[in-house]
């Protein structure tokens, strides 16, 4: 592998829903990230940075273990992975909410009596577990990998824990929000040791990312 200037940053970016905005804020900060990574895994940008294109849920691990110095990732992913990374800035975009939802006709959102033992279907196992444990509600979490909104309709689960951006998906399946677990946006995250080792480069990038946010 070619030896790179140690002051240069390796930045982890999430492919998918957050990519376009992530690329836009980095370009505004002077790092020429491509519009579309295509099938590429990494790109070396003209300012000397290296950008990694990752599955969103993998970004925290790359940053925690120092394979990337810093990265952009949704807060919802951070809640779920419990990786120790520093959250230096709320970038504001990619807003969505992690919610508990149920069928409208079950009327849980209007305070209807809950079953004594709740079955919850979700992709967000840890966040769901923590939410119900805090309320001392006995639940069984069923981990799913997609189409979570189907599960209450076919009797797999009483409720779901899922991300909601516009609410269209919930409405289409006649589901309603029972409770909000958290509001998520994209975060700029950094490896705690690299923050120190590459302080100048990281704080310079942080300042450029924060400039348009006015914070």
């Amino acid at each position, binding site marked *: 592998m070619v030896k790179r200037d*140690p002051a240069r940053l390796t930045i982890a970016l999430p492919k998918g829903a957050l990519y376009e905005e992530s690329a836009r804020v980095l370009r505004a900060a002077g790092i020429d990230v491509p519009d579309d990574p295509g099938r590429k895994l990494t790109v070396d940008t003209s300012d000397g940075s290296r950008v990694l294109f990752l599955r969103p849920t993998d970004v925290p691990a790359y940053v*925690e*273990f*120092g394979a990337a110095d810093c990265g952009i990732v949704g*807060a919802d992913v951070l809640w779920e992975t419990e990786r*120790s990374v*520093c*959250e*230096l*800035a*709320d970038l504001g975009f990619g807003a969505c909410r992690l919610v508990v939802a149920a069928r409208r006709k079950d009327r849980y959102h209007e305070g209807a009596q809950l079953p004594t033992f709740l079955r919850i279907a979700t992709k967000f196992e840890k966040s769901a577990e923590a939410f119900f444990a805090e309320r001392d509600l006995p639940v069984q979490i069923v981990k799913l990998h997609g189409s979570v909104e189907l599960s209450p309709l076919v009797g797999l689960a009483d409720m779901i824990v899922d991300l909601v951006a516009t609410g269209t998906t919930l409405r289409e399946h006649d589901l309603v929000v029972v409770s909000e677990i958290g509001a998520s946006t994209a*975060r700029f995250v*950094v*490896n*705690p*040791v*690299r*923050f*120190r*080792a*590459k*302080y100048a480069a990281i*704080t310079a990038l*942080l300042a450029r990312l924060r400039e348009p946010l006015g*914070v």
Partner: protein
Amino acid sequence: MKLPPGTRDWLPAELRRKRAVESELLAVFERWNYAEVQTPCFERFDALEAGLGDDVASRLFLFADKTGTQIALRPEMTTPVARLVATRMRDATLPLRLSYVAAAYRYEDPQEGRMREMTQAGLELIGAESLDADAESLFTAIEALDALGLGDTLFDINHAAIVDGVLAGLELDEEAIGHAKTLISGRNIVELRSALRGTGDPAAIDAIVELALTRGREDVLATARRLCHTDAGLAGVERLRDVLARARELGHGERINVDFSLLRDISYYTGFIFEGFASEVGFALCGGGRYDSLLPRFGFHSGAVGWSLFVERILIALERRHSTRFGAAPAIDVLVSGSDLIAARERAAGRIVRIDFDRRGEEELLDEARAQHIPRVVIAQDGSVREFAVTW
């Protein structure tokens, strides 16, 4: 048969390297006149709990002996050494300089550099509250890492009273202060900002959040001085300035930064604190500081400062650097066949001797010596002794 999670075996080459690192450290400690001590691997739980506070106490390996007394494996050495000083060494002349190399145990999620059984090397300087003592703790750590060939390790320093002095400017209860410190220490700027919202003047909150991102040389002290609301905090800022000046005289100025978010996760620190980092390893290689409130918990009214180093993290850093500095296998001096007496004489002369069990023939023995780079072969057979010099 499997090992319990978070533990490991040490094979000969690995252990040789570890021992070499440990003896290098002990040699540094000895040059600074620190004397090595040992304490039991397990202690009464109440003794450890007195020193450590809830966070570490919750990660102890805990069990009961046959009388029902709660026993725990020690999770670090500072508390056991404090107990030792407060009991059997309470009449010793101060300051006391003590060092250790010891296994410690914590119930962690095992990962590289964070095992459930780890080796800590460190020292404690007891009964000295001056700048000299703080400076000595930092300089011993720098020299220790230099001696290990990690001369580019960065050191960050801070003072525990500064963050308290800064947070004193906001309306926070004790729990909120604890939460804010956790967020500052993890540099979770996003949540810190929202936790502090509404607790004071927005400009003051902004300044505190910025302070958590601030790291640098002497120039950053002015910011802390401006934001600090307590005399103890201001004295802390001056202590940092003085330590930096002493470090500069020794030529360490480029390696030391003030980092106001550096708050170590053990609750006993009261003053100067520091950590050392290498970019190859995701955790601090070493760290420590002043803990004036710990010894009084054991009825010994004296201040102290100390630090410890994680030996396994040092080994990771050396491995990542492909360092061959430590742990080369010792060369065998002589291969002896057929005489216990000759072998004994060779050992008595301080040589490393390999003994041939099978009375093999000359050719075979010389082949082995060439292959293993053994410079001499002595063969005793039928009353005659033949010696060969071997080259390869």
